[in-house]
């Protein structure tokens, strides 16, 4: 069978499932709607995996390409829509689908979904979200990328504000919606400019047409506008303000998806658009792109880590850790090498499992104690050793402890980044240590009651963790899926780092991803891209040592923090940074405009 035929199914299956659930949810019992949702998500995962395994085998047409409805381009141009199952895109679609299955299992029967007598709305929205994310990962058409971007956006806004009876989720969802949609419209302006220049909408076609002339101001404007929207989704500083507000209030299963894959899809979008459209001689020069993304990535990593350390609201803490890891992903993309891309892909794979598992553990605390506040929970969860152990393992994996997938990703990416600037590996170690240390600190306090009880500080802006449980009532006994799902996710993350076959497959995916000419030939001419021969990413002594170093630093930081809570809690030096996170939509939009200006300034030298 031609696996390319399966590509439309990756988008269509979850949409069909959502329609079925929306239509029949009123009459279905809860169990049936949960089963239906899982079945459709799993079917999507199966088709994405089939495409991926076909994509992994070298052969004629190295990866599947499907022109939907047979509308192939004639003479290099056309209006057909193309889906491309290259290993990285198909792999991301598979990751999204598998995580969706995990999330649906996690919320299996326990998640208390309003409206009470209309089951099926939650899994239906999750399936729409899945369709948007999978479509964004495998589309080869820029305008369709915008449509899928907005589809996943709208589903995510609705899911964030899903508990409509409470004020906080509404506020978070609104900030999320306004900032992300504004970014999407900037992207659409950029797409329109590219269409005006080339008369094409497909990534491969636009890239080819652009390369027939030199770059100019219009190409620069298009790049900045398109990238702005993608960076908003990727939560790069200063476009990141919506993320902590949305993640802190969204239902736990939704947080697992937002932090685990949606934000990373923004990074993927930046890399995909650059490599297919702007990497040629008619696009943006490589040094300008590297400089712009390095600056934003370093800022994001540092600010995210600084804010992460100061949080007491557990979900907010994890959200800022996502921000800072996104910064590290952006640096991996910025160095513009196949090693950087495959390292980042491994990092994203490992991070998705770890971060989703940490959110899942936080969800258990929320449903049992009706709070996710580190100070209030002090020592209260001593009776949950299994959850505590999972949380601690998640914290260690977040630091990049070998042989977790996050550790391998960090090791490969920091080595690739080290070739561009020698001090970048130090940044990777520092940021992993601070974010992992913050998680370990919270774990030590909550699950072991270690150290002294931290005291509240007066007069500082902060979000405490008083929340309403997501289950019907507070949990007495912990249901099996709430523990089994994080355990499975952590195991998967471990397997990604420990099984060499995964790393070599990702290495090949990264090499194909960065082959601009090969992508265009495969999509437009149906010719196979030559598989580049590169050594697959693997564990090296330096990487292992740096991973152990960041883990050791994180443990030291956590131990110091629980012993001296007053001195290590919130440095006064960082108070202005903390005040920037004002919760005000107008401020966030102003920062978005400032970020666009910064991006322009950084990339202007690239068109000369």
């Amino acid at each position, binding site marked *: 069978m031609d696996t390319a035929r399966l590509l439309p199914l990756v988008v269509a299956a979850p949409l069909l499932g959502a329609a079925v659930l929306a239509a029949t949810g009123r009459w279905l019992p809860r169990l049936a709607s949960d089963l239906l949702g899982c079945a459709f998500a799993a079917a999507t995962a199966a088709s994405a995996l089939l495409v991926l395994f076909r994509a992994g085998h070298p052969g004629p047409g190295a990866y599947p390409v499907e022109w939907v409805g047979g509308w192939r381009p004639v003479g290099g141009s056309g*209006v057909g829509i193309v889906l491309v199952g290259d290993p990285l895109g198909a792999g991301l679609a598979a990751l999204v689908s598998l995580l969706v299955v995990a999330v649906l299992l996690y919320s299996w029967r326990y998640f208390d979904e309003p409206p009470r007598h209309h089951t099926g709305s939650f899994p239906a929205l999750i399936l729409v979200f899945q369709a948007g994310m999978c479509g964004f990962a495998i589309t080869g058409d820029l*305008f369709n990328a915008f*449509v899928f971007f*907005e589809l996943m*956006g*709208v589903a995510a*806004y*609705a899911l964030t*504000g899903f508990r*409509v*009876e*409470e*004020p*906080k989720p*509404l*506020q*978070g*969802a*609104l*900030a999320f*919606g*306004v900032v992300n*949609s*504004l970014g999407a*419209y*900037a992207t*659409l*302006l950029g797409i*329109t*400019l590219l*269409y*005006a220049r080339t008369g094409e*909408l497909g990534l491969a076609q636009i890239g080819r047409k652009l390369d027939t002339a030199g770059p100019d101001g219009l190409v620069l404007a298009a790049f900045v506008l398109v990238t702005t929207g993608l960076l908003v989704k990727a939560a790069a500083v200063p476009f990141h303000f919506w993320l*902590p*507000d949305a993640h*802190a*209030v969204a239902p736990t299963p939704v947080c697992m998806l937002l932090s685990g894959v949606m934000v990373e899809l923004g990074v993927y979008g930046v890399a995909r658009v650059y490599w297919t459209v702007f990497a040629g001689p008619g696009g943006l020069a490589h040094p300008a792109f590297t400089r712009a993304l390095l600056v934003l990535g370093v800022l994001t990593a540092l600010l995210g880590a600084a804010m992460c350390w*100061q949080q007491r609201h557990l979900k907010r803490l994890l959200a800022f850790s996502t921000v800072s890891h996104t910064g590290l992903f952006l640096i991996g993309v910025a160095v513009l090498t196949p090693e950087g891309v495959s390292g980042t892909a491994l990092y994203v794979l490992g991070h998705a499992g770890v971060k989703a598992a940490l959110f899942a553990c936080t969800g258990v605390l929320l449903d049992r104690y009706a709070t996710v506040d580190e100070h209030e929970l002090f020592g209260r969860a001593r009776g949950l050793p299994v959850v505590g152990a999972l949380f601690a393992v998640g914290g260690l994996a977040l630091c990049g402890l070998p042989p977790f997938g996050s550790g391998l990703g960090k090791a490969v990416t920091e080595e690739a980044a080290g070739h561009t600037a020698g001090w970048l590996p130090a940044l990777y170690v520092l940021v992993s240590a601070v974010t992992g240390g913050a998680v370990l600190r919270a774990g030590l306090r909550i699950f072991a009651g270690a150290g002294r009880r931290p005291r509240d500080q007066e007069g*500082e*802006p*902060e*979000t405490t963790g008083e929340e309403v449980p997501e289950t019907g009532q507070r949990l007495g006994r912990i249901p099996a899926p709430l523990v089994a799902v994080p355990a499975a996710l952590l195991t998967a993350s471990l397997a990604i780092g420990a099984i060499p076959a995964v790393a070599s497959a990702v290495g090949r995916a990264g090499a194909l991803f960065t082959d601009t000419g090969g992508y265009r030939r495969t999509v437009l001419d149906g010719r196979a891209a030559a598989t580049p021969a590169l050594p697959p990413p693997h564990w090296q002594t330096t990487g292992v040592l740096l991973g152990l170093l960041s883990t050791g630093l994180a443990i030291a930081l956590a131990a110091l923090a629980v012993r001296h809570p007053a001195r290590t809690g919130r440095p006064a030096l960082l108070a202005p940074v*903390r*005040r920037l*996170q*004002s*919760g*005000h*939509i*107008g*401020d966030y*939009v*102003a920062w*978005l*405009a400032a970020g666009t200006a910064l991006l322009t300034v950084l990339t202007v030298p690239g068109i000369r």
Partner: protein
Amino acid sequence: MTVLPYLVAGWIFLIGVYGLVTSRNLIHAVGCLAVTQSSTYVLLLAVGYRNGGTAPVFSDAPTDSRVVDPVVQALALTDIVVGATVTALLLALVLQLRKRHGTVDPDALSELKG
């Protein structure tokens, strides 16, 4: 081809962003978001315009007549659908916020800080 439509599109986008930044009412803010989006309609239609072109409907015109680009019109339609979805959802969130919080002033919403 005049440069005016492009300037108008840019101006509409910026005025919408200005409105969002200074907004004191969330319904007004969602309206401003719709304004920024309308700049994409203007830009799309300006890009597809051809001097002396007519509507791309060939039922009552000869097939060799000069028409404007139909692709951008399809894109604008899709864009309108996306915009309607986003605006409706955000307005619903604002309504619900008014019920739970008793205010639509972004300055009064201060539960998420720091």
